[in-house]
C-alpha cells in the first residue's frame, strides 16, 4: 500500500495543475473540484507507478482533460444547442486587434490581475468555443486531434476556435477599458 504522506505530497505538488486543467475546460469550480478529486483517486490506485515516473504530470493532465471532456459530453446536446443560439453574436466584423501591449498595460494593472481577467474572460465563453480554444492553446492539441476528441468536423473546430479568439479579444478589450483610468 502506498504511503499516505507521500501521496499527500504528490497531490499538493500537482493539485493546482489538475484543478486548472479541469477548471479551464469546465468553467465551473465545483465541477472542476469533482473532476480533480476523481483524477487523484485514479492516481492513488496506480501511485506505485506514478510515484517515480517523470511523466506523472503529463499523465495527470491527460486524465484531467479526458475526464473533463467526458463530463462535458454528458451535457453535449445542451451546450451544442446553446452554441448554435450564440452564433449570431459572433459576426465576422474583422477589426484591428487591440490587445493592450504588456508594457503599457503594466502601468494600469498588475500582471496577476491581467491573468485573472483573461481567466474570467475565458470562463465566460460558451463551452462550444472555450473547450476547443483551451485544447488548442493550453493543451497543445492540433485542429485534427480536437475534432477527433470532440467528435465534430474539422471545419467546426476551426470556426469555433476563431470565434472564441474573437470573443476573447472583445471581452478583454472591454474589460481593460473599464479598468483603465480615463
Amino acid at each position, binding site marked *: 500500500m502506498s504511503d499516505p504522506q507521500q501521496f499527500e505530497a504528490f497531490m499538493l505538488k500537482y493539485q*493546482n495543475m489538475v484543478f486548472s486543467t479541469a477548471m479551464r475546460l469546465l468553467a465551473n469550480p465545483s465541477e472542476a473540484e469533482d473532476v480533480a478529486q476523481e483524477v*487523484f*483517486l485514479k492516481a492513488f490506485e496506480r501511485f506505485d507507478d506514478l510515484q517515480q515516473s517523470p511523466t506523472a504530470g503529463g499523465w495527470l493532465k491527460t486524465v484531467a482533460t479526458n475526464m473533463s471532456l467526458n463530463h462535458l459530453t454528458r451535457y453535449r446536446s445542451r451546450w451544442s444547442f446553446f452554441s448554435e443560439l450564440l452564433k449570431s453574436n459572433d459576426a465576422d466584423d474583422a477589426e484591428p486587434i487591440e490587445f493592450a501591449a504588456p508594457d503599457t498595460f503594466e502601468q494600469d494593472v498588475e500582471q496577476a490581475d491581467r491573468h485573472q481577467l483573461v481567466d474570467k474572460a475565458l470562463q465566460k465563453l460558451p463551452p462550444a468555443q472555450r473547450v476547443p480554444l483551451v485544447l488548442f492553446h493550453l493543451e497543445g492539441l492540433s485542429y485534427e486531434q480536437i475534432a477527433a476528441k470532440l467528435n465534430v468536423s474539422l471545419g467546426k473546430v476551426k470556426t469555433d476556435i476563431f470565434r472564441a479568439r474573437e470573443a476573447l479579444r472583445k471581452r478583454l478589450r472591454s474589460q481593460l477599458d473599464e479598468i483603465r483610468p480615463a
Partner: protein
Amino acid sequence: MNSEYEKQLELEVNRELQQLADLPAPATLAKRVRLAIEQRRRIKWYMQPWQNWPMPLRVGALALLLTMFGGLCFVSWRLTRAAGFAAALEEVGALFSGLNSIWNVINVLFGAVVLVFKHLGTGFLLGCAAIAGLAYALCIGLGTAWVRLAFARR
C-alpha cells in the same frame, strides 16, 4: 476575415493564454481526496473487486476455484462409472416427465398452426412475409435517419 488577421489574432491569444498561471486549487480538495481514500480503505477486502484483493488471497481464491472445478469434473466422471448410475439417470428422467407433456402440447399447437397456414394458401403467406419485411426495412430506415439527425456533425 483575412488570413493575416487570423494569424495575428492566433498569436495574440496564444501569448495571453500561455502566460496564464495555474489556478489555486480549493483548500477542500486535498481533504476530499483524503476522505474518499479513507472511505475506500474501509470497504472490506471481500467487498472489493477481485483484482483489488491482497495478492495471497487472490492466489488462494484462484487455487480454491480451480480445485473445486477439478473436483467437480472428477466426481462427475466417477459417477458415470458407478453401478447405480443408469437407475439414477432414470429417476432424474422421471423428475422431468412433466416437460414431456408440455412438449406434446407445443407439438399439437404447431400442427394446428401449420394446418391453418396450409388452408390460407401460399399467396397469403407471401403477402404476410412481404409486409413483415417492409415493416422491418422501414424500422431500420427510420432508425438510421433518426441517428443521423441526432448525431449529425455540425
